[in-house]
């Protein structure tokens, strides 16, 4: 099966119902995408599939055949995406574990709404759980990254 992850094509031999998450983590060693709950609730495993945020824990690998997958490792070269810069500038993370998923969704949000309001951010980002409670900093960082 051929899949495209971060603009690289991989030919992999796995069962078609294996979730994308485990292909990324165990087969491709792209461990930036995290396992949180395995049932699509916490959203730590969020990746972009053809630009849309999806829970890689609940997507069978056969579904992404021929589609483009973007993980945190592929969001930018050297961590210089505006959101990554904002995260660093504001020291958003505590344990850091949920942040790749948060950043991926935030990237989708600003691709859709380049200047999101607090309400836009709350609505989109409330999909995700951060057990450390960094929500305020996440919101501030998205606003910081999209300010004039």
């Amino acid at each position, binding site marked *: 099966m051929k899949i495209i992850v971060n603009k690289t094509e991989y030919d992999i031999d796995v069962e078609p119902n294996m979730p994308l998450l485990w292909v990324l983590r165990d087969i491709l060693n792209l461990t930036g995408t995290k396992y949180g709950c*395995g*049932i699509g609730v916490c959203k*730590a495993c969020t990746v972009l599939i053809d630009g849309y945020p999806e829970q890689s824990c609940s997507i069978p690998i056969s579904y992404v055949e021929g589609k483009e997958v973007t993980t945190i490792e592929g969001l930018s070269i050297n*961590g210089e995406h505006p959101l990554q810069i904002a995260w*660093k500038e504001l020291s958003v993370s505590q344990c850091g574990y949920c942040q790749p998923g948060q950043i991926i969704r935030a990237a989708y949000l600003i691709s859709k709404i380049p200047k999101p309001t607090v309400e836009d951010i709350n609505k989109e980002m*409330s999909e995700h*759980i951060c057990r*450390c409670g960094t929500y305020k900093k996440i919101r501030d960082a998205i606003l910081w990254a999209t300010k004039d």
Partner: protein
Amino acid sequence: MDGITNLSRRRFVFGTAVTIAGVVSGFVFSNEALAELIVLDKDKKILGLTPSIWVEITKDNEVIVTVARSEIGQGIRTTFAMLVAEELDADWSKVFAVNADGDPKYGDQSTGGSTSVRTFWMTLRKAGAQARQLLINAAAEIWGVSPSDCFTENSFVYEKNGTRKLSYADLIDKALELPIPPENSIKLKSVSEFKILGKAHKNIDEPLFVTGKAVYGSDFRLPGMKYAVMLHCPYIGGSLLSYDDSEAKKIKGVLGIYRLSEGIAVVADNSWSALKGREALKATWNPGSNQGLSSETIFNTFRSLLGTLPELPKSTIKELNATYEVPFLAHSTMEPMSAFAFFQDGKCEVWAGTQNPQTARNSVASALGISRNNVKVNVLYSGGGFGRRHINDYIVKAAKISKASGFPILFFYTKDDDIKNDYYRPASMHYIKSGVDSQGKISGFYHKVVSQGDVFYVEPPYNISDIRNFTEKHNFGIPTGPWRSVDYTQNVFAIESAIDELANLAGVDPLQFRLNIAKSSRLKGVLQRVAEISQWNSALPKGVGRGVAAFEGYGAYIAHVVEVSVSDEGFLRILKIFAVVDPGFPINPENIRNQIIGSAIDALSTALNAEITIQNGQILQSGFHNYRWLRMEEIPDFEIDILTTSEQPSGMGEVGFPSVTPALCNAIYNAIGLRIRKLPIGKTPLLKSDDKKNHYEKFHFNTYPNPFVSKVQIEVIINDFNKPSLQLIIYDFLGKKLLEPKLSNTGNKFYTELNLEVYPPGVYYAVVCLDNKRYSFPLVKTI
């Protein structure tokens, strides 16, 4: 002398082929945010300088700080690096941190009780100052001047009255020839000389977090590794009777199945195959002595042990007899427990997120029957700790599975495993008997804590003439362990709620009441300041309330004011949290703010929603869908103020938790006069008692069953059938609109069956809208 050689050339991208023998310790942050696992090769010629086990200076003029406490989100790697860098006058942009492995030479490595800063504050500063003095001595010798003629800045030594300067790296060869300055000759900076400490600093790990390069326990990879999960007994204290693995062995990728004392391990080529293999296992279990055990039994037993408390002093004119109740809680870290272990030739090496690598090392040695000297525990990032990673059960399991299978093993819990195999925050009941005298003073304060024997009492931080404490216990064998701020979470909820109730009995403003009796001037200081920033004495609209609570612990002081609104329908909104913390000396103010806000959200989530329940000897919760955590849209605004009152720092990871819960409950009381004595709050409809009726002039409201598990039937019988402008809306207890179900009708009876299966347990409100009026009815969903 140990050393890191030529660090920059030894930065390996994680996942490149490294031999097990070559992997020695930890990982490092790099400014360029490139590769991040440091592979140290101790056989190479030492080029770096290590005046102590805490600091190394490299030929590239980098400073490597050894961090012997675990990063679990509290920012300790940044803090420790700052402590060394300050006294070393290091160039902050070239300061890195590596994690120590578990070894007694580092002292106590238990990351708990918010002790890290207080334990290492002087040690690490001295290590920095000692290295600095050694480098000054080396420069002085090279230049033929006195050390007092030299000064340091940004990783260089300068000649005071000259133009000469040398980088720390340039001084390494000379320094290696010189004696290390004895500790008693070292002079530390005064607070006024600090350039790094006390200023906001960025998290040094952020570049790794935002690129997915930080290596957590579950991210460790080695060539030839396999993945493992375990089928655990679903009954607390139960045991395996028999199992059949014939179907599991047929699953593609499954390599082996091993019966261990902890459960049945499935080893496979990847996580998915391991999980599929586990699913195909058939096992029968002996529930053991806990068969039939439920939360109800536990709390009924606790209640029966409350007994009586002594008579209060005769001066008492108004008496409070209140019982506060808190449930078991799971840690529910974002990253379920996981560990990597490789047993080979009688030795075992572990890579894991753990809050105690020393006890992990001992436990692995004992479980494998080998000497501690043959076990190495490397500390990786933890996807949250909160006390959970003090217990190293998952590390021992990884080691045992590696030994049984012969493979390097990444062992992991699923979220369900993680919640069901936790060491829970203990549940407890608190009977407080207290009262006030004719002067409005507390006459006596008697407090009995009933638990499994795992909750100790805490004394109120107030001048009260007659404080007495009691404990009672009944151990049901529910495994419990440390949980962020430990005994304080339960005790401070009870005590600070009771103080509020006493203030009301005394007819005194609750904040003033605390100021009148606070023992410590620093506790008074945070209370006074929080009164200012929250405008405590300003008037509030109807349905809006303010609550206050205070706490001292971990060497720090904090006061919280929580502002809430409770609507006529019962919807709770947490509007704002004001917190004033007095850490003594604030090492990194930005990180303090992060910790205070994070702790508050942790406290709100647990106070509002979280509860672990037991039925028939089993844990019912299994994930965030039924163990609910707050989301971004639900968090309040925050205003945080930090007071600097001394030159001694304190612990910041836990102090922000305990007083949030009582301040919230006190605010709800202030808003609607309803006193919450049982957590979580989300189980109690926030309706005044006169609102709790089903019959109205215009209609009659019925639900069945209520409480319910997933489905509930609702019917509205309208008295005046001519005007059926009727609407039904379902909200969660925070007032978020969830559903607007369509109603069927037979005559004047309107009805529907709601399926709320996908929503977490707690209180919901069915709001009937009729003739421009809204009537709210609680729906109680249980697990």
